[in-house]
Structures are given as C-alpha cells and as structure tokens.
C-alpha cells in the first residue's frame, strides 16, 4: 500500500442505517457532486494533479474524464501558483473551475494567487468581476505525513476577506456543499479530511445543496457544547457518547462552513449549555478554535458558566513518527476530558 491508504482503509466508522436511504462513501459522494455539476453546466471544469489517473484523487474524480472529456477534466503540471491564477482567470471569464489538490500543503504554494488575487479581485474592481472557483484539498494525517503533508490550513485562511471555507463531516454534506461551492460566485475552499474518505453515509440521489454558512446540530445536549467541523466532528460525537455514560449531555454542533461562520447556532447552543469545547483538526492558535472561543467571549459572555476550552493541535509542527503522532493529535478521550473539566466549574 502506498502512503496511508492502508491506514485509512483500517479506520472503523459507525455503519449508517440502510433503511434510511442509499449509502455512499464520502469519496463517492464527492464524485457524484462533481459529475452532476459537470453535467448541469458546461462552464464547470475540473483540474488538478492526477485527477485523471487511476487513483483518481481518492476516487473523487473517477470516471469523470471518460464521461466529460479531456477538455473539461484534466491533469495539470506541478505548477500550483500558476494553475491557481489560471483557474482564477478562467473563473473571471465565465467558467467555474474546480481546482483539486491532494493536500492543503500544496495550496500554500499558490497563496499569492488565492489570497492576494482570487479572493480580493471582486472587491478591488468594485464588483465588476466575479471569481467563482472551488479550491479542493484533503487534509492528511498519519503514517509519516509529517510537517509538510498534514497541514490543516483553514486557520491560516480564516482571516482572508472574500474567501469562503467549507469543511464537511458527512458524505451527505460533502456532496451538498460541493454543489453549493461550485454554484457560489466566490472562491470557496473545500477542505476534506483523508480519514473521512471511506466513511459511509446516506446520500440522496440527484441534485441538492447544503447551504454555505449554515451549521447543524448533530446531537442534542444540555450540559456542554462541542463545536467543530470535518473529522473533528467524528471525534466530538465519540466524545459525546463517552460523556453520556457519565451522565453529561453534550450538544455537538457541526459548523460545516467555517467562513462565513454560523454564529447563531453556536450562540444558541451556548445559551442552553453555558459551556463550550471547540475542536479542530488544525492548530489551536489563531484558527477555528481561537475564532469561536472569541465569539463565545464576545457575544456569548453572559451565558458562559465556564471558560472556553480548545482541543486542537499544539503550537508544534506535525511529527512524522508514529509514537510522536499519538502525543500530537487529540482524540475523543481528550475532548471528553476537556468537557468534564468544564463541568467542574
């Protein structure tokens, strides 16, 4: 097995109930979204390193080139910055590119075109041009991904005006948010997590959208709020189960979009629980944890019964080695422990 595919294949998730509908993996759901978008609108095209190769970007682009042709689904040179600008230029001139990257680390090479150009041009020219493009990447973790292949960069991008960032946690949302992202008239980053790629879930047939900027309550609870997105929700849900065994009711809020943020869903939950643990797949400092912590302090202060708790990555680059990784990445138990501490206040 190359890289961490074996690791990802070995992860165990709760099985969805087949009586609730058709079951797809997370990667298949994205594949279906791309296929639908390409089919509906000739302006949509998919580009990225290896989108047409046999591995097909974890399967998300499988069959697309055969179906829609080499002009609309194509491999690119290893030229991230240039290709990001090319995507932006095409978007500014009537197309809707979906630019796929294996990992967010590689998006960083294109920071100039993404942050300083694509995200700002609509504002800079007084709304004359739109830049409807999707930047997709899957966060890596484990098996020696290390400091240069596991960076979750949502926190770094959170402060960039003009950019939207979605981070789905379920196959259903992966499809619905991808379709919304493609239809959005702004640059939208879609950050997935490699550990979710084989997760199963109920995915409706056909076209539907999950709105950008709207979170969802994954589990109701009265005592403590756990808020996050993407793979952090997987851990948050497990933590909630652990807490339930101790008689603590955790409410799990899946933000789904981290920019623009659904502030109301967080504040409403906080009004009920008065306690919040913010979880993220990235560094705690200056990112999603910090931003939501600030939201609680700024707009939910009166409801707080305990300080805000953050569970994310420490202010350290990811180590490659297995043992060090175990110390580095928080797990469900750590989220639960954090929540229990808040209950002591």
């Amino acid at each position, binding site marked *: *097995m*190359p*890289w*961490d595919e*074996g690791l990802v294949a070995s992860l165990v998730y709760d099985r969805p109930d087949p009586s609730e509908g058709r079951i797809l993996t997370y990667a298949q759901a994205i594949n279906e979204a791309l296929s639908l978008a390409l089919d509906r609108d000739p302006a949509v095209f998919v580009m990225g*390193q*290896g989108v*047409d*190769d*046999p*591995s097909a970007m974890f399967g998300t682009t499988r069959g697309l080139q055969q179906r829609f042709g080499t002009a609309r689904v*194509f*491999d*690119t*040179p*290893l*030229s*991230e*910055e*240039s290709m990001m600008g090319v995507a932006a230029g095409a978007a500014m001139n009537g197309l809707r590119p979906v630019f796929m990257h294996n990992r967010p*680390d*590689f998006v960083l*090479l294109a920071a100039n075109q993404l942050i300083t150009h694509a995200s700002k041009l609509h504002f800079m020219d007084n709304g004359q041009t739109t830049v409807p493009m999707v930047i997709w990447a899957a966060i890596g973790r*484990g*098996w*020696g*991904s*290390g*400091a*240069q*292949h596991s960076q979750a960069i949502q926190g770094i991008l959170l402060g960039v005006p003009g950019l939207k960032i979605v981070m789905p946690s379920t196959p259903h949302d992966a499809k619905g948010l991808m379709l919304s992202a493609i239809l959005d008239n702004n640059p939208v980053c879609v950050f997935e997590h490699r550990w979710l790629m084989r997760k199963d879930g109920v995915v409706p047939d056909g076209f539907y959208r999950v709105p950008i900027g709207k979170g969802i309550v994954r589990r109701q609870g009265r005592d403590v709020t756990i808020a996050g997105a993407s793979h952090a929700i997987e851990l948050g849900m497990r933590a909630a189960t652990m807490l339930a065994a101790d008689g603590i009711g955790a409410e799990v809020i899946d933000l789904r979009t981290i920019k623009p943020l659904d502030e109301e869903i967080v504040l409403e939950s906080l009004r009920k629980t008065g306690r919040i643990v913010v979880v993220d797949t990235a560094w705690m400092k200056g990112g999603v944890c910090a931003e939501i912590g600030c939201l609680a302090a700024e707009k939910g202060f009166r409801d707080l019964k305990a300080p805000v708790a953050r569970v994310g990555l*420490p*202010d*350290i*680059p990811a*180590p*490659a*080695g*297995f*043992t*060090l990784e175990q*110390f*580095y990445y928080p797990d469900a138990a750590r989220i639960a422990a954090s929540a229990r501490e808040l209950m002591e206040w």
Partner: protein
Amino acid sequence: MIRYCYKGEGLDGIARLAQGHEAAFLVGLYRSMLRIRRIEEEIERRYHENQMKTPIHLVIGQEATSVGCCAALRTADLVYSSHRTHGAYLAKGGDLKAMLCEMHCRANGCAGSRGGSMHLIDKVAGMAGTSAVVGGAVPIATGAALAAQMKHEDRVVVVFTGDATTEEGVTSESLNFAALKRLPIIFLCENNFYSVQSPLATRQPPREIHRWAAAHDLPVALADGVNVLAVFQATQAAVARARAGEGPTFIEAPVYRFRAHGGAGDDSRMGYRDEAERAEWERVCPIKLLETYLTQRGLIQSSTMARVEAEIRDEIAEAFAFALASPNPVEADLYRHVYAD
C-alpha cells in the same frame, strides 16, 4: 504501448566511458549501487509488516544517478533532495542505521522520528536536507550555494530533482538566480517521465527538459541516467566549473523507476504506464549493465561478487536489527526544537 523508450547507448556507453578508470573505482561504483538496491529491496520486503510507518519512495532502477553524482563529490559538498531521498542519502554516505531508525519511527533516527523517510539527513556526510514539497529544496539548495560563495568556502551544492520539479515556478526562479550569481550548484534532474501516475506528456510540451533549462543561460548536459559513469562524468565536469567559480550546471538524466511512485511493488498494472515499458528499461538496469561490463572484462570475479553480496546482506541485517531494537521517542521529545535556543 511504450511511451518513453531508452535512448542511451547501453553497454557500449559503459564500455566507452570506463576507459581510463581503475577497476577498483568501477567495482566501488557497482558495490554502492548494489548496496542501495539491496537496502531498498529489504525495505520493500518488510514494508507490509507495518513496522516502518512512513511513506517510502523507492529508488530501485534509479541507483546510477545518486551513485554516479556523489562519486564526483567530496564530503564537504552538500546534497539536497526531494521526497525520493534514499539514493542520495546513501550515496552521499548517510548512516544506514540512522536512516532505518528514522523509518522505524525511533528516537535515534536521523531526524529524531520527526521526519520519516522523506526527511533523511546526515549533516556529517553532507546530506544537508530534503523537502517533501516538490521544488521545495531547490531554492534552499540555491541558498546554500549562495552561502558557500559568500563565505568563500570550497563547497559545491547538488540538488536532486525529478522531471515534475521543473514545472514548479520556484525551480525556474532558482535557475535564474543561480545563473545570475554564478553559484556553485548543480541541478540534477532525474527524469523518470512520471509524476506519481501522470506522464510527462500531460504536463509538459514535447521538448527535452535540458533544453528548457538552457533558456536560463546556464550550461546544461544530458547524461544517460542508467550509466553510472555518464552521470559521474557529467557531474565531474559540473563540479570543476563550480569550483572554478564558473557557476551552475543543469544535468538531465533520463531514468526509470521500477516501482510505484510510493510504497512497495510496482503499480504499472493500474494502467497509467505499460508494463512493457518497465520491462524495456529493466533490460538496461543500471546495476546489471555495469555488472555485465565488469564480468565480461574480467574486472570482477564471481567470488568477489559473492563476498560483496554477503557483506551487504550482513550490514543490512544488522542495521534492521539495530533499528527494531531502538527506543521509541517519549512525549517530551515532541516539545523540543520548535524554536532554536
């Protein structure tokens, strides 16, 4: 369909360039390549045991580039490489035990278990660093050459890259700067025609990579990448220029990786390249070519070959045993070296 065929001279090329080299030197090159091959094979054989929890990018088939190049370098010269590190590290004299400890995620690995196989480093041997981001090491190596120049050090820098690395803007920018400042650096491009599973033809127009490099106004060379002597000779000439203050050189060496981009085994069967193509290149396996030459000319005896194999086997067995018996890091290790003191 064979997309990328071998265009070198094969055995004839070896015979031509072997003139004037001592038998001991040739046997040494052979031994170095064989050692890398056997180490890679053992890594591959054991990979499924999941003791090496690290990605691997094997250099099986590409041994001649690292060995030929490093044979023209001194210990004080610096080598940087991409994610495909094993060959450069070993050829430059990197410590095998420290490498295997790193790959087994042990505390005494060459990067303290923080780097894994893509970040092999041995500063004593002049294996100066790598980047797992394609193109990432190219400007860093260029900076190392700038430092050597500014500090008036007698030091040449080599950076190993792949064909796809030349598509990164930063590579072009680095070539430009190196040519501008006449830096003592050699860009060694191992053109193995594929970037993961993407063939060169989907990424670059049909012109040779060294011709692209030449546009940056620096001397370029095309060296047969399966001929260790051709790579040695091209590097030697580039090193001489660099030491004489005449600036950088770009060398393109066409080669083939006999295995998948990453992981154990070949993945040609997935359909992105033809197994017949690999078979064609296996016929010009760099190690077999030199071995054939050496045996045909009676420059190596079968008893010597058997001894070399046995020595390598013992060294590898000992190094693996050492790695497996080495300690894991502890939690406190994680917090070290985020900042320098």
